[in-house]
Structure formats: C-alpha cells, structure tokens
C-alpha cells in the first residue's frame, strides 16, 4: 500500500544520493514539483533516466544533482537545445555529466523489459548507428528461430520512479490519462515509485484511455496540485508554452539560471 504523504517526506524517504531515478512523462504530466523537491533537498550523484530529457533535466543537471544521464533525446521541445545540459557536457559545469545515450525505441524496450523483470528488450535497427559505440547497454544478437540480427538492450530497473498523474483516491490508487507516455512501464520497472497527483478524491471515476496504477505497486502518493507546470495536466491546465520559450534565455547564462532557481525553486516551500 502506498502511503499518502507530503512531497518533502516522500523525497526524503525514497530518493537517496547515488540512486538510479526514472522521471517520466512524455511532455505531458512532467513531474516538475518532485524534481524541484529533489533539487531543494540537494540530492547528489543521481543517475537520471528519462526518454525526453527536457527542462526538468536541465534544471536538475544545472543544480548539480545529476552525475549521469540515461536518455534518448535532450532538448527544449520544438525550440532547440538545452543550455544547462550543454554546459555540463561541453564544459563540465557545475559537475561533469556522464551520458548513456539511446534512441526512444531502444530506451523504451529497456523499460518494458525492466517492467517484466526480463534481462533485456529487443528491437530492429540501432546496431547500424554510432550510438552502440557509446552505450554499453546495447548488443547485437541473433534470433534463435530465423538467424536475423537484432539489437538487445539491457533492461533498466530504477531504484525509484517518479511520475505525476491527474488523480488518486484516498487509498493511493492512481489514475492518469491523455498522452500516457511510458509512465506505467517506468513505475513497474522500478523498485519503488512516487506519484504526485493533481487531486485526491474519494473514488476514481472511469475515464477513456486511462491507466490505473494500484496502490500496492506504489510507495508514496503526494497531493501536488499544478505539479506538472510548466508542462500540462490534461483536463486540469494547459502547457505554459511561453515559459518554455523564456527558459531558453534563462538557462543560457549561468548566473541568470542560478538566480531563477533560487527565486522560483529553492525559496519555495511546497504545500
């Protein structure tokens, strides 16, 4: 059974220095509130796993929480490059960033294999590219039935998965819908899972296309309204596209970035 708790307590109890942390949400339901609490609690040496490494990764990397990033795309969606990520990769600021780089389909099968507790996932393609020379987790294998060469990707099993969802009930059962991304797989691949939600209700009403994560696969459920901003929560609020545009200039400069984080993250106490 998940405990329904505060963000501060959930991060303090379940996210530790050096952990392998998956933060998922494919441009929708991005767990910003939880990422900000990790920054406030100054976690260090995390290995962060995320398919689309976007602004939340840029913020955690720029604040020195991340030693290694496992990812398949890193950018400001539709707008360009991530400046804090670039600064860490190109200049080692504030700390050097190790990369384990995949493509989306490759990291996806690593999560699905992880959720199924299998050693690896398989897919076509991949092995013809330069990525395999820079990622230890990909090998070519032969199909035992046809002899076809396919790529095997080592499963990922995070210490903790963090996602944001629309709602939970008072028992800690979670419901999310809309663009559902790879959150279910990230949660089931992980040893523990924290879910922040927009609201906690007495019971979960059925919604088309919704994913249910039962309380008994989760460690903690946290009420964190607007916890996905500046991304969006389908049915609750829309994406703050202006902020994504503004981030480009905030993150470009180290001092402006630190000042913004101090004012908008470090000095904010969550509800």
């Amino acid at each position: 059974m998940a405990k329904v708790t505060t963000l501060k307590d959930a991060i303090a109890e379940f996210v530790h220095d050096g952990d392998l942390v998956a933060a998922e949400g494919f441009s929708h339901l991005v767990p910003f509130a939880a990422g900000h609490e990790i920054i406030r609690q100054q976690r260090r040496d995390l290995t962060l796993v995320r398919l689309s490494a976007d602004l939340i990764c840029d913020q955690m990397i720029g604040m020195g929480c991340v030693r290694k990033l496992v990812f398949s795309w890193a950018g400001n969606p539709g707008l360009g490059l991530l400046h804090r990520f670039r600064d860490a990769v190109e200049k080692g600021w504030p700390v050097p960033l190790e990369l384990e780089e995949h493509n989306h389909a490759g990291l996806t099968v690593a999560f699905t294999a992880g959720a199924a507790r299998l050693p690896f996932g398989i897919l076509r393609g991949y092995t013809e590219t330069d990525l395999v020379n820079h990622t230890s987790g990909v090998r070519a294998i032969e199909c035992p039935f046809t002899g076809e060469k396919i790529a095997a990707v080592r499963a990922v099993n995070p210490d903790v998965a963090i996602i944001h969802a629309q709602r939970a009930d008072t028992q800690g059962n979670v419901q999310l819908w809309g663009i559902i991304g790879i959150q279910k797989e990230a949660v089931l691949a992980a040893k523990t899972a924290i879910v922040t939600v927009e609201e906690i209700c007495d019971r979960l009403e059925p919604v088309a296309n919704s994913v249910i994560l039962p309380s008994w696969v989760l460690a903690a459920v946290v009420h964190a309204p607007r916890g996905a901003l500046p991304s969006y929560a389908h049915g609750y609020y829309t994406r703050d596209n202006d902020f994504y545009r503004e981030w480009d200039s905030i993150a470009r400069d180290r001092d402006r970035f630190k000042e913004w984080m101090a004012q908008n993250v470090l000095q904010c106490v969550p509800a």
Partner: protein
Amino acid sequence: MNHAAEYTPDEIMTIAAARKFRDRATCFVGVGLPSIAACLARQLHAPDIVLVYESGAIGARPAKPPLSIADEELAETADFIVSVPEIFSYWLQGGRIDIGFLGAAQIDRFANLNSTVIGRYDSPKVRMPGAGGAPQITTGAREIVVVLRQTTRSFVSELDFLTTARCKGPTTVITDLGILETHPATAELTLTSRHPGIDVDQIREATAWPLKVSDSLRETDPPTDLELSTLRELQ
C-alpha cells in the same frame, strides 16, 4: 501574379514538403517544419491524412502546428492515443507507417543522418538533442522525407556522428534550394528538382560531395497563392 521574389527559401521548402503528404497516407511527423508542412497539407490537398506523433497521438488534427509532440490539442483531436511502447513497437516497427518526416543537422550522400553532435562525441563543439525516435522511423516507415537547409555544413561528405541509418525504402530530401531523391539502384541522393531561380551550380556548391544530377532534372512548381496564404495563416 508573379511570386518569384515573393516567398522565402523556407516557405518554398515547407510547401514542397507539404506536397509530399499523400491524402489518406499514415504520416509520422515531429514538431517544427514537418508539423507545419503536415498542417498545410491537411488544409489543402490531403484532408484525410493520418498524422501520427511519437507521443502516441494517432490521427491527430491540429488546427495550428503544435509546439511539442504531446500538446493537448494533439491528444484532444486524435482518433486514439497509445502508450510510447506501443507507438514504437506495434505502429512503427509493425510497419503501419507510410511516410516518416524528419529533420537533421547533417546528411550524407546516402541520406544517413546526424542529430547528435558537431565535432567529436566525447568533446563536442555543439551537443545537439540526439536520436529521439528518428532511428526507429527510418527502420519502420516505408518511405522517408527529410527536410533541412542545404549548405556544405549540413550536406557533408562524412557525418560527425551517425545517429540515424538511412531508410531501406525511398528517401526524398527537400531543401531551400531543391529536391533530392535516392536512386533506386545505388541509393545515392540525386538532385531531381531545383527550385525556381536556383541554378544547379549553386546547389552543387552547397553540397560537400560531388552531387549527382538527374538527366530529367525538373523545376519545382512555384508556390501558389493558396499555398502561400494558407502557410502564412498557420504561422
């Protein structure tokens, strides 16, 4: 009305890309120029196109090009939504996509793509976003359209990094100068169309390898009034 000087190089590139969307085709599109071209095509000649986004939105009908591949409008207008594992395994790898639209920072003469780094991987001059869904798109889609501006920095003899291996099916590359297509026998990119007012030497100079030119080189139809006005309303 003469449009020779009345459209920008990016506009004819986007319009030429929009013309590649066949009505009722299933098209895998990313954000940026491919998504603008997709919206343009849907409003003009391809109203029943099936737009597929890697966020899992299938059959989306955005009125305006979305900023991200998972914008709420894509979810709200989609025929249905699937998870990320499903979009890559059942729909892309499963061979359900007719055409994939891609961008890139560098392309070589066989239409392999780089979107990872400029310079060396371990000490990059510019660290770019990386692969995303592109390698699975060239692996799974029947046909690929790549859209990028043509200069010797983007049309290179050797990629700094091979992010996305070429599609086994036909590939069309649409630039601000002309249109290149892979040769059916050699798979080498061949210039098949030049945009109005652009001469072949100019395109050769913007290509870092000795560019093959088709014997039946065409001139791209200039943008029509309707294409231009519709595109400008979208932006």
